[in-house]
């Protein structure tokens, strides 16, 4: 039988080939039942092989939850062997050459659904992959210099970098080689194998642009140059402990200037400290940001520097460091004309939005915008050919789910536009409001709550209609959408962001999105948006229109959207959002009860809908609304520079939501905090009713921890964190309540059936007697 191992032979690097062989052996052992499900799950995750929605063998088809008849073999806890999964491919700094693009196109065609999906961290994902195919995928990728190693799991993830690195006008220097060196040096390193959670690195060339969003990474370097003894010395302004996720954290300054030769040793030392002191049991507290928060940045820095000083020399870091200059790119084609005349029509608009004139005279970087980050196998193959003919070897994925072609001679831009147009990839939308970012959401992600891609597609379609005629200030806004609070769509750093949640309306579950306004994309994700309340999914497009119209009408001078939000204040913005919160009854408009792009009646996973509990729902909804109102008040207090009051108001909001649940079981429960928390703990936490399928006890811990005592520092950061936690706690309370309703409905149905059976039996008995 043919196999790729024999066909590719020496093209697969020996060490990678050996590791892939080992994984293949682990697959055989799992199939034979000789490797634990849990162990195998981590092994495949570390090779970027993820689970996907419905891989527990259950799917709601719009009428009922049905079992998908997979065989019982498992590839992880609750994860069936034959269920399709996702394969993530690491693309360090987003860099790909045409041969690699062609191979990825082939893999998508042969093993996936013929779509290559570019992620917000410059990876490529293939969906609907069968586990038996992944070994061939690994081998074929290895043969062209790509890997999936540590693309998931508790490891060093893809190292991202600004896609304009090396061609940017304002960068201190090209960070490409440094990103690549970090990626190669840390991958599989013994000091990065004992983490409780993932570890993400990013590099930017400039401080004031968005570039690689250094502020939201565990380890982020911004290029800096200093003069030492009359010589220019390269280094990095180094930030640590940032991250989005459920509760976002801005990274803290670790070093104003870390000399370039210290980059790899410092990253390694940090890995050793994180591995030794980071949380291992509670994964919800295991990211580096929690360790930095717990220790404080000064103590964390001291520990890392002490580790660095005591760490044994590792000759390999010099080897990787010496490779850095080799990453500098050279153009493949000479420039014939340094400048080009004004172009007309569609090309003109495209050059305005999608073309960046490089630092190197006569060259440009062209952005290929991908709708929802998707590119088909056929398009990818043709784009590889276009890349070769216009940009040589130089394409990069971006964190906005696009692909850039670098080193395109300016005098060939018009021809390039024509070629891209022929394959449907010449949309003039890069960096505009039309170019909506979205994570996979409920399409394929196990954690997705609402359809981020469905909403993004709807917004993209609607907003495309106004392209070119819209006010420039609106055109440059960014919309980013996540399917849940985990922030893979980076909603925290968008002008207008959304994340999926749900609400129970009249016994039905309705898809909603939490509205996040005023995040900052510039300055490497310099400020986070705050939650403004949830609106039903189907009303989000109307809300976007209202927000952008309001911005145009009330904008002062050259005011940014973030500045506008700050000036008019959250109360006024909340007023706009509140106009779109109403949900018509199911009878009046059932479309609200299914999600964008999915005609099935909306449900939360396998949860059945609760019916016939209208009065109880109304009482609970009232309580949750009060909690949401207090959470909003906390945000206002924070904006007014009152972090202590904001903290107390957020705590009160959590108590309100918890009390609402308690009173579902004990109507007359006293309102004091001690009783609320004690009863909430006994009835909902210890019973497991409040437990989230994926987040465990994370959300209940927010209340319990705050009840133990406030963070006495009362800073803006601590209050902001508590407000984020409060919003998540309230969402979790909504979900818990929906579970209670579902359980009530099931019990009612069972009781009715029993009564009917008893009645029938009784009737039959009577008949017999008769």
């Amino acid at each position, binding site marked *: 039988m043919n196999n790729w191992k024999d066909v590719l032979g020496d093209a697969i690097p020996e060490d990678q080939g050996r590791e892939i062989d080992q994984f293949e052996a682990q697959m055989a052992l799992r199939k034979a039942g000789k490797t634990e499900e849990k162990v195998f799950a981590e092994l495949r995750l570390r090779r970027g092989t993820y689970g996907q929605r419905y891989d527990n063998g259950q799917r709601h088809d719009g009428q009922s939850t049905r079992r998908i008849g997979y065989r019982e073999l498992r590839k992880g806890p609750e994860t069936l062997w034959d269920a399709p999964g996702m394969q993530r491919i690491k693309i360090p700094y987003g860099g790909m050459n045409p041969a690699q693009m062609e191979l990825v196109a082939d893999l998508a065609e042969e093993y996936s659904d013929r*779509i290559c999906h570019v992620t917000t961290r410059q990876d490529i994902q293939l969906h609907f992959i069968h586990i038996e195919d992944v070994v061939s995928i690994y081998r074929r990728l290895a043969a062209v210099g790509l890997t999936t190693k540590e693309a998931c799991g508790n490891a060093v993830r893809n190292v991202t970098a600004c896609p304009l690195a090396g061609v940017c006008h304002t960068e201190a220097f090209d960070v490409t080689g440094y990103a690549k060196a970090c990626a190669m040096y840390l991958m599989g390193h013994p000091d990065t194998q004992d983490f409780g959670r993932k570890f993400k690195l990013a590099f930017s060339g400039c401080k004031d642009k968005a570039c690689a969003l250094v502020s939201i990474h565990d380890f982020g370097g911004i290029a800096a140059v200093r003069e030492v003894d009359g010589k220019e010395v390269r280094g990095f302004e180094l930030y640590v402990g940032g991250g989005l996720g459920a509760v976002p954290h801005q990274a803290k300054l670790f070093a104003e200037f870390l000399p370039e030769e210290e980059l790899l040793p410092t990253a390694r030392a940090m890995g050793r400290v994180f591995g030794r002191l980071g949380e291992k049991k509670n994964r919800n507290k295991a990211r580096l940001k929690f360790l930095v928060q717990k220790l404080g940045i000064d103590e964390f820095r001291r520990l890392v520097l002490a580790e660095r000083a005591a760490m044994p020399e590792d000759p390999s870091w010099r080897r990787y460091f010496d490779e850095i200059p080799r990453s500098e790119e050279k153009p493949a084609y000479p420039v014939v004309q340094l400048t080009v005349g004004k172009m007309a029509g569609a090309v003109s608009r495209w050059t305005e939005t999608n073309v960046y004139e490089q630092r190197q005279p006569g060259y440009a970087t062209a952005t290929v915008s991908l709708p929802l980050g998707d590119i088909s196998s056929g398009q990818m193959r043709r784009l590889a050919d276009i890349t070769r003919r216009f940009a040589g070897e130089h394409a990069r994925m971006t964190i906005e789910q696009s692909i850039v072609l670098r080193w395109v001679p300016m005098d060939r831009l018009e021809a390039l536009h024509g070629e891209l147009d022929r394959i449907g990839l010449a949309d003039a939308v890069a960096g505009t409001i039309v170019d909506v970012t979205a994570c996979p959401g409920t399409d394929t992600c196990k954690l997705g709550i609402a359809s981020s891609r469905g909403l993004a597609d709807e917004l993209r379609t609607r907003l495309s209609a106004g392209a070119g005629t819209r006010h420039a200030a609106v055109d440059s806004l960014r919309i980013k959408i996540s399917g849940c609070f985990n922030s893979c769509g980076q909603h925290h750093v968008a002008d207008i962001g959304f994340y999926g949640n749900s609400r129970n309306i009249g016994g039905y579950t309705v898809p909603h999105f939490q509205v996040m306004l005023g995040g900052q994309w510039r300055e490497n994700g310099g400020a986070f948006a705050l939650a403004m309340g949830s609106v039903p999914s189907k009303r989000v497009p109307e809300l976007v229109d209202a927000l952008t119209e309001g911005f145009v009408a009330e904008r002062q001078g050259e005011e940014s959207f973030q500045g506008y939000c700050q000036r008019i204040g959250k109360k006024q913005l909340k007023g706009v959002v509140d106009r779109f919160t109403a949900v018509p009854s199911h009878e009046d408009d059932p479309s609200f009860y299914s999600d964008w792009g999915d005609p099935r009646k909306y449900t939360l996973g396998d949860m059945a809908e609760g019916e016939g509990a209208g009065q109880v729902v109304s009482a609970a909804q009232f309580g949750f609304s009060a909690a949401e109102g207090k959470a909003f008040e906390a945000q206002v207090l924070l904006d007014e520079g009152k972090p202590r009051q904001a903290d107390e108001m957020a705590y009160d909001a959590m108590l309100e939501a918890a009390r609402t649940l308690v009173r579902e079981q004990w109507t007359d429960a006293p309102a004091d905090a001690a009783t609320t928390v004690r009863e909430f703990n006994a009835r909902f936490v210890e019973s497991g009713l409040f437990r989230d399928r994926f987040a465990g006890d994370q959300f209940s811990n927010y209340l319990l921890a705050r009840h133990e005592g406030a963070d006495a520092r009362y800073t803006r950061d601590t209050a902001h964190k508590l407000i984020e936690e409060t919003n998540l706690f309230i969402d979790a309370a909504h979900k818990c309540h929906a579970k209670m309703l579902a359980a009530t409905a099931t019990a009612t149905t069972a009781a009715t059936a029993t009564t009917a059976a008893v009645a029938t039996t009784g009737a039959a008995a009577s008949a017999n007697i008769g």
Partner: protein
Amino acid sequence: MMGMELMDTHKIVAKVYFADGAAVDFAAVVPVLHQWIRDGALADHLMIDVADYAHVQHGPGVLLVCHEANLHVEDEDGRAGLSYWRKQPVEGADFAGALAMAAKSALSSAERLERDLPGGGRFDATRLTIRLNDRLNAPNTDATFAATEAPLRALAERLFGVGATVARVATGAGLFEVELSGGESAASASAGELARRIILHS
């Protein structure tokens, strides 16, 4: 290529095109495929989910994801149609058996779509495209054509009668592809009638 490798080539694609080059309303296809899952419409297939890529120009369109195969309504090669992409081996079948399964599944699904899609839509039952989605065992080479020609011709004659042709389609770096067409009984049949001409041996 040796006969043994050909036996391993189960990743067969069969595509039947809409008649008259009609464009496809992808949005109308999505609820139909969800209904197919509820109805268990594809015999011998474990139906999993529906994926919508209508936003990608000439992409994979809208697909019904099954364990054994993906079923697409797409216009990937510039022509709208229904394509069946086999992923798993057909138990107990050789290449000819797997080929028959792919062709029958595509044609019978096309017949069902003609019935279920609002506004109808007819398929062109005078031709059927076959691709081999397997660069390892069935690269786009003359050797693959030589090794597969006999079973392909047998299928063509069963579908379209005496005189049916098997024409290799040049696709450059793409997949191995042939078009089955012609023959004395090609013009009169529907997709459903073609499907019923294929007999599967279990």
